[in-house]
Structures are given as C-alpha cells and as structure tokens.
C-alpha cells in the first residue's frame, strides 16, 4: 500500500513539474484550505482576478465540496447543483484540488505560508457548540452535525449508529434550518428518501426507526424561530404529518411586531406557523407521525433512563418568557422558575457549529472564529494583519448563512487580497518566486501522503453514481476512508 502511494505520488509530481515549467515564472501562488463553498468561491474569484494566479485547493477529505456534500440534506438535490459550478472551477487549468491533505498533520500552516504567496483558510466549522448542562454526555444525545454527517455518509461518522429503535420520541434542540432538516429526515417516509443520495446505512436505520414523534424546541417564540420559510413550508407539507403548535404561543407582543416589521423572513415564518396552527386537527389519529413546535423552553438538564444505564430518557426544561434587551430591539429568553419535563430516547442538539483552531493560527475562542478584518487574519497580540494570510466562510464570520453568503464573503476576502497585492507591487514582492504546487507536492510525497486529485475524485464520483444507478439512487456514497482512498488510487 505504501509502495503504491509513493509511486503514484512520483508520477504526480513528474506530471506537475512538466506542466509547471510551461507556466510563467511570475505566478501568484495561492493555496485555499477547504473545498466547500467558501473555498471554491474564493478560488474562482482569485482565478478571475489574476491571470497569473495558480490556485491549489486542499481538503482533509478525499472528496471535495464540503457541506454541499456532507451538510445539504439528501432530499435537497437542487441545492447541490452548485457542484457543477465548483467542478468547472476545479477543471480550470490553473486550479488544482488535493484531497486527503490535512492542515496540521500532512502539512503545517507555517509551511503553506512559505510555499505560497497567499494562503486562504476556508476550512469551516467541524465541531459543535455545547450546552454545558448536566447529562449532555449521555448516550442518545448527539449534535445535529453528527447526525447530518451520518445520514450524508461523511467518512468520519458513518459508524455513528444512532439508536432509532428503542424510542418513539426524538427531541431536537433548536429551530433553525439544520433542526428542520434533521426533523424532516426523521419524519419523512423512507420510501421518499430511498431515491435520494442518503447514505445506505442511514436509510436502513430510518426504515427500522420507531420514532414517530419529534419535538422542535426553541428557547424563544415563533417570531424568533431561526428557520427560513422554504424549509418550514417543506416540513409542514410532509404527507400525513400531524403538526402541533400551541395557539397560546402564537399570541404576540408589540415587541414581536416590531421585530417582524424589520424582518421579512421572521414575518413570513410566523405567518406559516400561524396558518399551520389554525389548520391542524386537535388530536393526531392513531399511528400518525407528529411534529410538535415547542416554544419558550430552555434545556436545564438531560434526564437519565432508569432501565438503560447511561442512556437519555428525557429533558428537564425551564419555561421562559421574552425580555427586551434595551435599545437593541432584540428579545432574549428569561427563565420563569417554572419547569417541565419531556420524555424522549433521542436528542439532537442543533444549537450551532463551531470552528476548530490550529497551531500557529490566531483564534478567538469566545466567538469561535479567526480574528480578521474583511478577511485579513489579525495577529494574536496586535491588531496587525498577518502577511499573506486570509480567511473566508464560517471560519471568518461564524457558522451562519446560506451557500450564497459565501459568494459575497469570498468577494470581500479577495478584495482585501487584491488591495494588499496592489500595495506591495511597487516593492516587487511578487517577483519573489514561491514554489507553490511543486513545493507542496514534494513535501506531501516525502510524508507519504496519498494525494487525491480532482481526477481521482472523479473516479470516486463515477463509482458512486454507478453504485447508485444499481438501486435507483442518484448516487451511493462511499462512506469508508479506506474504500475512498482505494478507489482514488485505482
């Protein structure tokens, strides 16, 4: 195996050296870390802005596209169409993708900064915020990210095996779009999911799932729910689903009205919730799947099961009420001293993702982002920008927004890069030749890293499509690290 890796690496390096020599000497060497939307949009904009730019995108996974592959729900194929655009970027002769390359182990940040003129970190948010309340470590409690990676066949979590068989109730903490995604996957008919690219291990588990009741719990009210209208409309339209929204929760205050006046999304989401509430039946019929929107509840602690040691059996909530933060127009949840328990056998925490720091990178631990001014990374001590180091996407602004947000985010980071390059030009800083791609590949070869190129990814892609076509799915994801690397090396 090792032999195979190093020999294929040698071929690779030779291939690139040849291609390399034909390029002009004065290339602008750019490395983008992370191949999700932020990474690809940054690469695209750099290639567009500079004819002399040579952009290498590295990713720790053997597969590109980040959350478009492992985050976007399997029943949202239209959202994944943007992959076509990213693939066109990857096919640009001045762009390369190198998968299975991990920043911090295959290659270090200090090395990248030596090899490249510009390094843009766009590696997203691969961890989770925690509630920090008792019982969070009980089995049956997962972050929504873990659950999403599991059903989307992310190779790190294909073994998660959440227990869906010993309970009829799941609680989802949070009411954003990720919360709606996981609730919808739990409630949708598996027959409908069977024609998507959902991972087969997840499909079988969902087919055997005994969960028929999902609570979507928010600390605040229906006016503050963080989801958007599209996702809400979609879950409300699930065939045969009983939807419960308490009418009392829909009584709004003047502060609520003010919030809605200033926010079209909040207004339209509230309208949808109101309509769903008034059109629903008073009680579910037997066997009907149920979705409960539960507002004004703050989780206090996870309850442990009496029969199953170490397993979650429910949640203890404090009831809340809204309190206005003076002058901000915002309302926060305040405890009322009244409590309520809800039983369940599965909890999915959808309370936000968190970025991970790496060695040598300034990091704001409280905000979970890299300190930056319009994409320029700021050094730890002073407010001085780090030379040639930039961020984009969730690592830059926190884990919110839609794919398109990264378009504007990348615009901003690339504008900062351009300003800096312009400022440096008189001193001919770019005349300094940097090894770029060649230097990267040499280092990776010396470390026996099996680099997965975009062509290698296309082998994985074809194999997944072939496997999918055998069972009526657009794609059957390969979810195992070793298999992915083997297919890539063929």
């Amino acid at each position, binding site marked *: 195996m090792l032999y195979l890796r190093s020999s294929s690496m040698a071929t690779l390096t030779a291939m690139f050296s040849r291609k390399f020599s034909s390029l002009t000497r004065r290339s602008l060497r750019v490395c983008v870390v992370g191949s999700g939307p932020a990474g690809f949009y940054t690469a695209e904009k750099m290639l*567009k802005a500079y004819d002399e730019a040579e952009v290498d995108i590295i990713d720790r996974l053997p597969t590109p596209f980040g959350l478009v592959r492992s985050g976007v729900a399997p029943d949202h194929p239209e*959202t994944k169409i*943007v992959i076509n655009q990213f693939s066109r970027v990857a096919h640009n002769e001045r762009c390369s993708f190198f998968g299975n390359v991990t920043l911090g182990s295959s290659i270090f940040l200090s090395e990248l900064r030596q090899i490249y003129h510009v390094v843009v970190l766009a590696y997203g948010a691969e961890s989770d915020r925690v509630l920090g309340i008792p019982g969070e470590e009980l089995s049956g409690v997962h972050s929504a990210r873990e659950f999403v990676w599991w059903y989307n066949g992310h190779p790190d979590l294909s073994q998660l095996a959440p227990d869906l068989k010993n309970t009829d109730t799941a609680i989802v903490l949070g009411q954003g779009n990720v919360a709606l995604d996981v609730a919808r996957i739990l409630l949708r008919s598996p027959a409908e999911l069977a024609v998507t690219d959902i991972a087969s291990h997840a499909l079988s588990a969902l087919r055997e799932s005994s969960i028929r009741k999902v609570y979507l719990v928010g600390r605040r009210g229906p006016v503050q729910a963080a989801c958007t209208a599209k996702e809400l409309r979609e879950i409300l339209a699930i065939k045969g689903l009983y939807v419960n929204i308490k009418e009392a929760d829909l009584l709004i205050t003047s502060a609520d009205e003010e919030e809605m006046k200033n926010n079209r999304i909040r207004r339209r989401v509230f309208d949808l919730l109101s309509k769903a509430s008034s059109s629903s039946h008073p009680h579910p019929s037997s066997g009907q799947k149920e979705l409960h929107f539960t507002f004004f509840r703050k989780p206090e602690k996870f309850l442990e099961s009496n029969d199953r040691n170490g397993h979650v059996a429910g949640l203890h909530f404090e009831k809340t009420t809204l309190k206005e933060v003076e002058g901000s127009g915002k309302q926060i949840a305040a405890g009322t001293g009244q409590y309520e328990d809800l039983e369940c056998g599965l909890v999915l925490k959808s309370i936000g993702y968190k970025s991970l720091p790496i060695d040598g990178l300034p990091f704001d631990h409280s905000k979970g982002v890299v300190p930056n001014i319009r994409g320029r990374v700021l050094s730890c001590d002073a407010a001085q920008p780090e030379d040639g180091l930039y961020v984009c996407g969730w690592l830059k602004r926190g884990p919110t927004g839609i794919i398109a947000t990264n378009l*504007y985010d990348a*615009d901003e980071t690339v504008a900062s890069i351009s300003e800096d390059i312009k400022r440096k030009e008189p001193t001919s800083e770019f005349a300094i030749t940097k090894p770029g791609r060649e230097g990267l590949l040499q280092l990776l070869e010396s470390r026996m890293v099996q680099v997965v190129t975009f062509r290698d990814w296309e082998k994985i892609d074809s194999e997944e499509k072939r496997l999918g076509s055998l069972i009526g799915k657009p794609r059957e994801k390969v979810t195992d690290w070793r298999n992915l690397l083997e297919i890539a090396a063929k």
Partner: protein
Amino acid sequence: MLASKSLRLGAQAIKGLTRVSHFPKSVCPTTLTRRNPYVQDGELFSTTATGTADVENEEKQKISVTFVDKDGEETQIKVPVGMSMLEAAHENDIELEGACEGSLACSTCHVIVMDVEQYNKLEEPTDEENDMLDLAFGLTETSRLGCQVIAKPELDGLRLALPAATRNFAVDGFKPKPH
C-alpha cells in the same frame, strides 16, 4: 461609509485586473440552462406555448434588456421571447450568478427591476420564489430572481440592476440566515 468606499475601490481594482471571462472555457451555456429534473414547478419557466402560428412569431421576436452592474455600467442585450433573464445574462457574459441553475433553490440570480411599471407587468412571484428572495442580499420592493423573469414582448426596454451586494455584506450589518 469609509469602509464601503474602500471596498468599492477594491472591487474596482479586481475588475480592472479581470481578463478571464465569467466561466472557465469548458462552460457550455446549455449546461446552465438545462431544466432540473427535480423541480416540480418546472412549468413556471417552461418556454413551450400552445398556439402554433404565435409560437413562430414569438420565437423570432427579441426584446431589448439592459443590465446595470453594481458600478453603474450598462450592457444592453437582445433577449428572445421566452428566455429567462438568467439564461440571457449567461449567454451574454453578464456576471449574474446562477448557483442552482434556475431550479429555485438559491437567490444568487437576484435582479432589481428598475422601473416599477415594468415590475408590475411581471406575474406575481410564487411563494417559492419569495422564499428565496427572503435570502437575497440587498432586497428591494422590485426584486426578482433572474431565472423567474421570462422575456415577453411587453417587457421590451426592461432595465435590471444587479444588486451591490458586497457593500451590504460588509457594511450594513447583514445577518445571514442558516441554510
């Protein structure tokens, strides 16, 4: 305000350096305009008409559309009746994004109809289009998605502005919503 100004200068600097066309050369326009098999509302932007004689006339007919980019630069193009503004923009190298290729799953082809009278000649946006417009940057009262605006004779002379989204993103404290 200061930030916004320097950012615009930055954007212009990029523009000045741009020599590569909107898409790499491998792009075939037909891949951008292909109908998405998953879209159930496909009929919304279907170009097939029912009449026969009318169809021939309509197909030959083109209207004039002007795109105004965020720096105020104007590009006038001819758009065949029945074609969406997203397709038309791409066929003419106008920098309008189309991440979901017209399947109503993103807001990247957001355009602003500059004349209210022209706006009123368009059919009301559907709930699905409004859901996407919710997420558009720099939304206005006459915002539409380019993929949903279909050329028809009454729209001759249509003027569409591309939103200056970068400024909104950087300065106006835009709070993006989760996907």
